[in-house]
């Protein structure tokens, strides 16, 4: 029992036990956020740095609140990803921050593998808050937590992940995680954004959203970025909407108690119809709420959770 990793870089290398221990810990953490005094002294004296090289409000503030509810001190750095030619290198930036003796660095970066690179020369615990198109482990964990909360299980559920799979770190982390927990994962999207190579990740690939919707338990919609259109991944938003928007009509094909998820921020009426996003089946705001509990659990397991058996 226990979580023995120094960093949280991704889901791919976590075991099923690791994942369950994070989810179970998060159950206990969720209770704290319901109290009048939403704070425990667990990480008193610990310093956590939020180092964000990409704009983010949701993930950054979620980590910030998580750290604060555990009484850790948190510093926020929002920087523009420095290119090779201008500005300080990532290595120098991180080494400077490390000189301030933090206990953990939470890093969000536009390049895949940046947190892995940082972990090769850092003393601090590194938490990946999203790297390029690679992984976003805490998002997948909070998604799993939400699914478990709503469906009481994950194994055997038919879970659709829909949209720009190719560029999505949320999709990758969810594929790894949901596979480990035994879900039936179906990816849906236009072929350029969902190349057939994804089948080798042990998931089903579909380009027919209507058909894929049948009997779905969970519909996880991904944000579609308009920039992709410029790179010829699909012809137009109008056509994308035609084929891959989650509409009321499509939703009806799923199981009646299917839940709708989205990592945010929403493009209303692009990947998801606005009435669907606001329907009773939507758990999008619960995802946000659960994000805090998951991130508290991750911080606790990495920074605080080690102790000898209490002697009395």
């Amino acid at each position, binding site marked *: 029992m226990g979580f023995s990793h120094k960093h949280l870089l991704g889901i791919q290398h976590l075991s099923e036990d690791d994942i369950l221990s994070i989810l179970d810990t998060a159950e206990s953490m969720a209770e704290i956020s319901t109290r009048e005094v939403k704070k425990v002294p667990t990480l008193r004296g610990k310093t956590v740095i939020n180092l964000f090289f990409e704009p983010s409000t949701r993930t950054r503030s979620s980590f910030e609140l998580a750290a604060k509810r555990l009484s850790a001190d948190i510093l926020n750095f929002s920087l523009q990803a420095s290119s090779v030619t201008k500005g300080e290198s990532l290595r120098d930036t991180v080494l400077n921050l490390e000189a301030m003796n933090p206990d953990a660095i939470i890093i969000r970066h536009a*390049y*895949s593998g*940046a947190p*892995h*690179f940082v972990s090769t020369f850092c003393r601090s615990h590194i938490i990946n808050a999203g790297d390029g198109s690679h992984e976003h482990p805490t998002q997948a964990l909070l998604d799993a937590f939400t699914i478990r909360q709503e469906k009481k299980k994950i194994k055997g559920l038919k879970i659709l992940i829909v949209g720009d799979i190719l560029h999505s*770190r949320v999709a990758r982390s969810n594929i790894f995680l949901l596979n480990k927990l035994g879900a039936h994962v179906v990816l849906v999207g236009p072929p350029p954004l969902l190349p057939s*190579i*994804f089948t080798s990740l042990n998931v089903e690939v579909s380009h027919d959203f209507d058909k894929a919707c049948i009997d779905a338990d969970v519909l996880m919609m991904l944000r579609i970025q308009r920039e992709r259109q410029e*790179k010829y991944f699909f012809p137009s938003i109008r056509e994308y909407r035609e084929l891959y928007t989650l509409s009321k009509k499509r939703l009806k094909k799923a199981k009646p108690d299917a839940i709708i998820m989205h990592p945010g921020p929403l493009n209303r009426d692009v990947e998801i119809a606005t009435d669907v996003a606001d329907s009773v089946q939507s758990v999008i705001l619960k995802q946000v709420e659960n994000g805090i509990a998951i991130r508290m659990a991750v911080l606790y397991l990495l920074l605080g959770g080690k102790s000898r058996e209490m002697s009395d």
Partner: protein
Amino acid sequence: MKCLIKNGRVIDPASGTDDTLDILIEKGKIAEIKSRIESSNIRTIDASRLVVAPGLIDMHTHLREPGREDKETILTGSRAAAKGGFTSIACMPNTYPVNDNAGVTRYILTEARKTNLVNVFPIAAVSKNSESRELTDMADLVRAGAVAFSDDGLPVADSQIMRRALEYSKPLNKLIIDHCEDMSLSANGVMHEGFYSTLFGLNGIPSSSEEVLVARDIILAEKAETSVHIAHISTKGSVYLLRRAREKGIRVSAEVTPHHLLLDDSLLETYNTNLKVKPPLRNKEDMAALLEAVKEGLIDAFATDHAPHTPDEKNVEFDNAPFGINGLETAVSLLLDKFVTKNILSLEDFIRMFSTNPARLLRLEGKGEIKKGADADLTLLNLRKEILVDPNKFESKSRNTPFTGWKLKGRPEMTIVGGRIVYSARP
């Protein structure tokens, strides 16, 4: 001025020689080759238990000078070459400024002469500033000493320019070497597109990016009734195109690097920027196809694509790192250990691909063969000695190798250029 190399196993693929012979060197040339040459009063090198090969030639090196002397200079690159067993290197034109005019070519030759180590043969640009818009003054460049043309680092992107270059250069009898890459297909890719790029979330460079241009170049060479050379071939599909072209009698040649034969894309799991090369490390199937093509003799030459970069440039996020790895000081030992000592490739084929053929492709007179009157450029190889790859001991300025810590059996023992020992592993 005389020197005798005694008792070596002399292998010269050009003449089909593989025998224990003595070689007498006089005035920088090979004066005599016989089973026994009298050795009194002559400086003698005991080559018993060593292989004596015609000097190895790396037809694809980046020396970075002029312009990026922080990465490498003609001097440090030449030292690295000598240590790596090379008597000649051909350097690519992507310097600052680009080697697209006789002035830069002459500068490189002058600096190389000052170093007085290995032969440096400049490859000039196909197009001005390698921008694929205007042809360089090719005849002028040849007069200045350019041995071939390439826009390496970049492809000759414009098909019309490529066609005209192939046509125009015909009377010059110099090879056009193309870095085959359709940049619009590579887009912002940083590794081979496939299972592992999907897993690691890195942007992929598809095989098609190379194959589309290999096919184009083959077609253009056929129509122009001339030859073309594919630099650092890396995919199974390119091998297929090469085989088809050869069967049709089209004069297309190709080179392959040791790293494309030995490393595959699964290794990028660590996001180690010393595995970031162009073309990218492909998958195991591609590796197998390349090796097969080497064994068949379909691929003509080995080349290092020695691409030095500073540690700071490589010590960054994977996307931000420049493409390329150090190659001169590891290539020979890698191939000897992984292929020759394991009997996958004969010593003769190894020498053919790293000396005989590069000399022929680059039209280097008196190189790539051991015969009376040829230049006394020789590489002595020790197949029994092991090396440990330690970048801190590199002569090159750069340290960007993925082979750190590899133990390899077989090493260059001595490098002789024009009868002069420019490197010796002996104390």
